């Protein structure tokens, strides 16, 4: 009778709000301050199970502990090794060190390529907050991320999902990735592509810009396409965002609406709005995908946290009582923590904390608080190392584009958000992922506004 009782207790636990009482930014800072200099009591290769969970609490953000720690957990400790960016990025960082500056409004000026600022010199406060934000913005991405298939899985705490169609689709090929509990409400599918056009460390010969900054690349930091192919009611919907190189210039955004068969210019207010009902906004992708100048920034300090920085799986594998914990290797990483404070009074968040890897510049964890100052959402991201052999499965099994050898890119594997106030989340595993080289002709076709009308 033990197991049924245990399951019942787990179910009751799962049905409760993930954080029993209101979790505030002060609570987060209390964990941060208490554990900034904590030393790990585990070693490489250890598998942390429920009875040893206390070992990882200092290195797991307080708000994420209820998700990471549960009976049946398996957190394997594995050092990520050298996952630093390639030499071209390091070279550009070195070459242009000290040239970038922050204007009075927070805009980045005199920046060319590489990491703009050295985080080792940062001190808590707004000034270095801006520097951290721009370091994040111009982390190493080569030409940008390409995803053949994004799944947006709407999960609700409790229950199970064995009967959901995604478990049997295509002969059950997704089943191994969605283990554990949690009920699935809806699954959206679609491709994604981002292309960076400027500040490209890999293009010194063309002034660090695609096509020397002429033509399609002119004045552009990046273009980003997010599409949806199913279910039928949203099939064909696509968003195109154009981020200008001028940090003070607002994005331009368009959406293709299938029922209108027309491209519609959309307001950038949409970026801070839920994306098609998921718990993400367009601004939340990657941890933060918005314009730095639309927010205020404060550098908080460094922490050491566990993260899936170098996944042992080609694709994200979920488990746990609610199906949103990650079954993978967890590396202890040094992260810079920065606080993001939206400037707009009608922004749904009051603030976010972002954990940004000191070495790679990638983000593995963030959280957001609502206007009342209560914890609302938690993001956990996983990365696949481009140089690992199993990364090739993206090409062989998922028809990904080819990531050139030596790219040394922490490829975006998944971003998973948990809405703790509503006991639900959205898993966003990606498949067919790559950081391909720029084929300008191909990119022009995909990321041209006029391409959207070709959609069906």
């Amino acid at each position, binding site marked *: 009778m033990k197991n049924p009782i245990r399951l019942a207790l787990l179910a009751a636990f799962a049905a409760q709000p993930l954080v029993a009482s209101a979790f505030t930014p002060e609570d987060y800072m209390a964990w941060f301050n208490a554990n900034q200099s904590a030393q790990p009591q585990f070693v490489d290769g250890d598998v942390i199970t429920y009875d040893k969970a206390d070992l990882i609490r200092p290195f797991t953000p307080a708000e994420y502990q209820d998700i990471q720690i549960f009976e049946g957990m398996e957190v394997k400790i594995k050092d990520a090794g050298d996952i630093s960016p390639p030499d071209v990025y390091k070279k550009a960082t070195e070459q242009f060190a000290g040239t970038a500056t922050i204007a009075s409004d927070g805009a980045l000026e005199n920046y060319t390529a590489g990491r703009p600022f050295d985080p080792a010199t940062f001190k808590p406060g707004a000034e270095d907050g801006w520097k951290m934000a721009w370091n994040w913005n111009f982390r190493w991405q080569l030409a940008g991320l390409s995803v053949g298939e994004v799944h947006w899985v709407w999960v609700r705490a409790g229950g199970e999902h064995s009967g959901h169609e995604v478990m049997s689709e295509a002969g059950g090929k997704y089943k191994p990735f969605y283990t554990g509990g949690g009920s699935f409400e809806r699954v959206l599918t679609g491709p994604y592509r981002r292309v960076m056009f400027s500040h490209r460390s890999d293009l010194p010969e063309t002034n660090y810009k695609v096509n020397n900054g002429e033509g399609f690349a002119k004045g552009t930091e990046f273009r980003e396409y997010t599409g949806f192919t199913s279910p039928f009611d949203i099939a064909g919907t696509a968003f195109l965002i154009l981020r200008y190189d001028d940090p003070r210039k607002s994005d331009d955004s368009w959406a293709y609406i299938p029922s209108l068969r027309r491209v519609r210019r*959309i*307001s950038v207010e949409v970026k801070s709005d839920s994306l098609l009902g998921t718990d993400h906004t367009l601004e939340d992708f990657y941890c933060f995908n918005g314009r730095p100048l639309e927010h205020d920034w404060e550098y908080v300090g460094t922490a050491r946290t566990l993260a899936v920085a170098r996944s042992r799986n080609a694709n994200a594998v979920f488990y746990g009582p609610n199906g949103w914990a990650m079954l993978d290797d967890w590396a202890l990483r040094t992260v810079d923590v920065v606080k993001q404070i939206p400037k707009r009074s009608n922004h*749904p968040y009051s603030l976010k904390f972002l954990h940004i890897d000191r070495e790679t510049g990638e983000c593995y964890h963030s959280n957001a608080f609502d206007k009342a100052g209560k914890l609302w959402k938690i993001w956990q991201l996983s990365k696949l190392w481009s140089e690992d052999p199993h990364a090739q499965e993206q090409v062989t099994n998922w028809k990904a584009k080819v990531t050139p050898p030596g790219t040394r890119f922490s490829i975006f594997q998944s971003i998973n958000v948990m809405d703790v106030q509503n006991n639900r989340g959205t898993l966003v595993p990606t498949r067919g992922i790559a950081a391909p080289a720029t084929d300008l002709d191909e990119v022009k076709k995909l990321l041209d506004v006029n391409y959207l009308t070709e959609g069906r």
Partner: protein
Amino acid sequence: MKSTLRALSLGASVLSAAVLVAPSAEARILIDALGGEVKLEGYLSSEARANVGNGEAYLNQWIQRFELNAEVNYEDVGIFDTLSFVTVVRPEFDAAYYYGDSIGHGTARNAGGTSYMGDTFTYDNAPREFGGFDIYQNVRFGNANFGGGNNNAIGDENRATGNHFNTVGRPLNMTGGLSKIVTNGFQNPSWLTNNFETILNRAPGQGKYSPTNANLGGFSGAAVTSQMELNCIRCYDLDDDPLDVAMNNTGSSGRLYPFRELYADATVGDWWFRVGKQQIVWGKTDFFRMQDLVNPVDFGQHFFFDSFEDFRIPQWIASAQWKFGNIGPTTDNAIQFLWNFDEFQRVGLGNPSQGWAHPFSKDISVFAMYNTFFAVEPCVSSAVELERSQKAAALGLPGGAFINDNVCGSRGPNDPRSPAGFGSPAGLRIDDRPDWELGNTEGGLRWEFRLGELHIAASYYYGWNDTPVFQYENINVMNTGLGGFQPLGANTAANLGLGQVDCTVSDLTGGIISGHPFAGFGGALDPNGVCPQASLGFPIQVMNPTAAIGQIAANGSQDAAVDSLTGEVSTISDFAQRAIAAKDATLFYRASTNALTGGHVKMSYKQSHTPGLSFDYFEPWSGIVFRVESSWTFDELVNNTRKADWVDKSDIMKWSVGLDRPTFIPWLNKDRTFFLSMQLFDTWFMDYEGDKHSGYLTDEHNFITTFFYIGNYMRDKLKPVGFVVWEEASNSFVFGQNLEWFIDNHWSIKGGLHMIWGGNENFRQDAGPYHSFAVPSTGGPSGFGGTYPFQELPLGVARSGIGALSNNDEVFFQLKYQF
């Protein structure tokens, strides 16, 4: 409403059963086949719509629909970088329409139901269509006192008994009017109520479709409610099989079977080609079409309440787009060339028997019915002809012998004559659509680009105007021997050379069977023997409208005529001269009660050049996206009732300004914005002429304001959508609200309501040559009791704009399974 609830539960059962027995479907089916990757997706839906705005609730439409989108994609095929073949098939079936006699309102299959515009067809509310010239001998509709004092008694008795026949139970005329088909024994009385309804006889201040207004007289119309085949050359929707109508396979909807869309897509470098049956969508405005004029639309299925994608009519088009990047200060340049090589398709107005048929569809039905039943020569049954001949012989009148040729069918199996006929041109003769030939195909181009903050599209299109005009081919000018009916002057013999000779027959039997007040006057009316032997008829000359007014003005007839608007009395020739001098044919037509007996009309079209320009702009401080769109059509055909034939040309500018803003309203939804959108739209007739009741059918400017919102709850699984539309010129409104729940990836349900009101302030227009068809009033100027010149029929519905569809308020419910 019981039938509605039964229909809904039946629909849910059928749909559920279909899904249960169907193989389990994934969200999108991908198969490796045909050498490529085949994608299949689509949906099954059942939607019931109940009319609740007409005083009673009934199931108006219950549409079962299946849509399959299939495409197969290839890469690197020959010169093509990508090559795709796409098709959309969408069969549907309106069960409420097809089985209307048991579950719907019965506007099909002779079930006798009336539409939102109609009343049951009776002598009271459509006396001319029902009883032809009976109204002129029946004082019930006039204060004339013809042929003796007992007509007042006849009228009194008829009002008391509800019987429009005379004291011996016979109609006053044995031919003319649909009821004569019954009185001659060829149909039962139920045939009238099962196949026709009376529409468009609204009295001011009395709401919709009331019986003849006693003070102002009404121009009633009888529209066909069933699928009776009507005689109108090339007219859409007048000969559809009930099953075709139920399946939305009508002329109005376009040829949607077997493929709704079928095209090939290909890319070669910066070129994108699409050839096949497709929709081309230009422009940036919701609800209105300025640049979006490549494909016609079908407003007859559900007005504009469905997505444009659902009622835009796909056509065979070849399109090529070249993306050429940056030029000078412009970026994201693309130019699209297209050639619409399909046969011309006009705007769809619906089969007249359908639940949401547009009022102009009813107009077409009315006037096609006129051409079918009233334009043909009259005839009678054998028994009636025998009775006539015996009475004529007894009275010693000419034509006493049995005239076999008077008998219906005596001219063979294809004898087109009918007891309803008047024997002179009347109604809609032809929908004069352009035939398919190379010179009638359409083409255009669009250049899109970004310039600074603006995203701009300039377009040009040369093609046929989708919306036809009603044009008079000829009018019937009286040429009788009786003073008062001699607009061309008293020399009837000389007038025979003016236009085509014909006769408007009041009664083929000469009026002698019922003791008609005019019995025996046939010879006086027809001194030249133009009309059928022994008949009572009005000789006419069938003339071009402009020529007719000119001739009447020149011939100097002294016939008294009354301007039915002002009451002024003068001669008919004087009114004709005034019309010519003022270049305003209404000055003649509203005095033409005794001068004309209608005429033939046709639906006319013209090709026009239409350049357009649009742009959108995002304003970051306010977060608003501004959309501006405009088009200018040169020399578009328009209806102008001040012209003799009702047709004119005008440059038309259309423009709109739209504002979009996703807006957080935290107290309503802290998680998600509301999408708010507002638009102002105007149609500006640059060559406008007219006033509130004559000339063009709308005001010089027709402003329409729209507002709509989209909300999202429960992670976008619950979507409320609402909109309001206000049309300023007609002061009419539309309100819509629906709520859709996406239960999971497959199932969704949606329910809501649409309401239309207003348009009562002005719904009248000059009736032109049909002025004489208006039912005489009891008051007003003299003559046949006077007839008010401005009527709802035939073109007054344009004045009430959107409000013409009021009383079709509905609630609806949809169940959908998508895969």
